[in-house]
């Protein structure tokens, strides 16, 4: 029992987190279905085990705290570490970040496997010497692959510009301004498309087709911002 208490407490924590995330701490309207009942029973049982462990000066939490307290590190860092630990634990339990405490929940969501064979991605391009030059914003974050932008255009910037804020005029204006400094007068929107069955990848610079696809297709992070002059040219 003495040694097993460590395992019990670890299981308790996992079920506690599951319970909190599933039903919310103060969600009084939650329906206590099968999972809820099972979780509640486990939590009450293991809570009793943990309290017994602390009373007997045993158990994972008690031992960890004691050992940490005995470490030969500055007291200030011990205090800060405890605060950070509890802050992160609350974030993880709730499944909600509160900067700088974070639940590290990237990619935790579920998806449905409903993928079309043809993937469309509207992208900006310009003409140079009568040739089409594609501006793949995400590419600009890679040191070995970037073409137009350079230092400072980090992966975080390209993620924000290419995905999160792609539908905003302000994002387009920002990019257009930066490209103008590099001698690019006008940005247009075309569509890159990949057929996963035939493995063919093509870029279509047709202005009107880009507007149509941007409006009608189900695109990653939604439609891109298309400048007014492109709509005018298409009309």
């Amino acid at each position, binding site marked *: 029992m003495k040694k097993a208490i460590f395992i019990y407490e670890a299981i308790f924590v996992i079920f506690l987190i599951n319970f909190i995330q599933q039903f919310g701490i103060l969600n009084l309207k939650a329906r206590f279905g099968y999972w809820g009942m099972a979780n509640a029973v486990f939590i009450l049982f293991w809570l009793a085990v943990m309290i017994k462990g602390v009373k007997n000066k045993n158990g994972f939490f008690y031992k960890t705290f004691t050992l940490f307290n005995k470490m030969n590190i500055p007291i200030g860092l011990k205090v800060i570490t405890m605060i950070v630990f509890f802050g992160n634990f609350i974030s993880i339990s709730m499944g909600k970040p509160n900067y700088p405490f974070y639940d*590290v929940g990237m990619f935790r969501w579920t998806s449905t496997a409903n993928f079309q064979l043809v993937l469309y991605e509207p992208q900006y391009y310009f003409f140079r010497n009568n040739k089409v030059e594609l501006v793949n914003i995400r590419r600009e974050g890679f040191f070995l692959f970037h073409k137009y932008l350079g230092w400072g255009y980090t992966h975080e910037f390209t993620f924000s510009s290419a995905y999160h804020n792609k539908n905003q005029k302000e994002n387009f204006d920002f990019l257009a301004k930066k490209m103008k400094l590099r001698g690019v007068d006008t940005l247009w929107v075309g569509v890159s498309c990949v057929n996963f069955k035939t493995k063919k990848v093509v870029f279509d610079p047709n202005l009107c087709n880009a507007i149509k696809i941007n409006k009608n297709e189900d695109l990653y992070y939604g439609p891109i911002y298309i400048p007014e002059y492109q709509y005018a040219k298409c009309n």
Partner: protein
Amino acid sequence: MGLYIFQNISMLSAIKKEIRTNNFFKRAAKPGSVLQLAFFRILIGCQIFYSSQSQLFYLLQTVKGTKKPTIIPDAIDLIISEMSVHYLKTIVNFLSVFLIFGLFTRIILPILTIAYILLFSFWYSKFDAPIPWLYIWFPLIVLCFSKCSDALSLDRLLNRTTPINKTSAEYRWPMEMVVVWLVYIYFASGIAKLVPFQKGIIWFNGATSQNIMYNRFLDSVLFFIFKKPLFNYTAHATVFSALSLSAVIIELLTIVLLLTDKLNMVIFFLLVSMHLFLYLVGVPGFMQLSLILGISLLSPNKFNK
């Protein structure tokens, strides 16, 4: 049969002994390496310099962005976003150079830490992903309390520090604290994918991994190199399911780092492999961050040769 049981009992005893003698608490009191800690300091400084140079700070001041929760009071948040981003950015840039070169380290580290946390509060609040700050902020706090400029620094050159034995435990516990932070990041990430359990079971169908690889294909290194998909991303659900399972196993495995350092190199290799794969398929933001924190997994003996 008897021999099999005996071997298993012996193995269990060996594992228990290893955990008793080589867990995080025991390791933190063992000899460290002044060079390892100094090298880590330099890498953190480089990463901060690189991140704080990002054009994202300027972009976020023009686009609508998000409004994510922070512990920073709203009034300070407003001051940062309305008028202080440029100044904080300059301070962080400037002080990160001092950190790289190890000059006035004891004085600049707390200021850099505060400025960094405030600057990236703006970053996070307006744009919640990716998150370089997660890998950096607590190790920065640890460095504030450590003797990280006792080597490879101008402080050392100018005799501003009084180094102790270069293998002292004073250089070991900061690196072990960084190991704990690394474990938190990856273990929490694994837990987040599993709970609530009903969601976790669905997550293992691989659709999330497939979604990311599919939608980011045209923005991935694999496309930049090969110019076409290597296989049909819309099919082969089993492959994506296996990838999802592998990711969670690797992330949860990091808990072993708290119990022993015997598997440090294995876990380091697995983490780097995972991030290299993600780098190739369109999730590049964490590769260098994991390498920087991964320095803490290397044995101090490698630096003491």
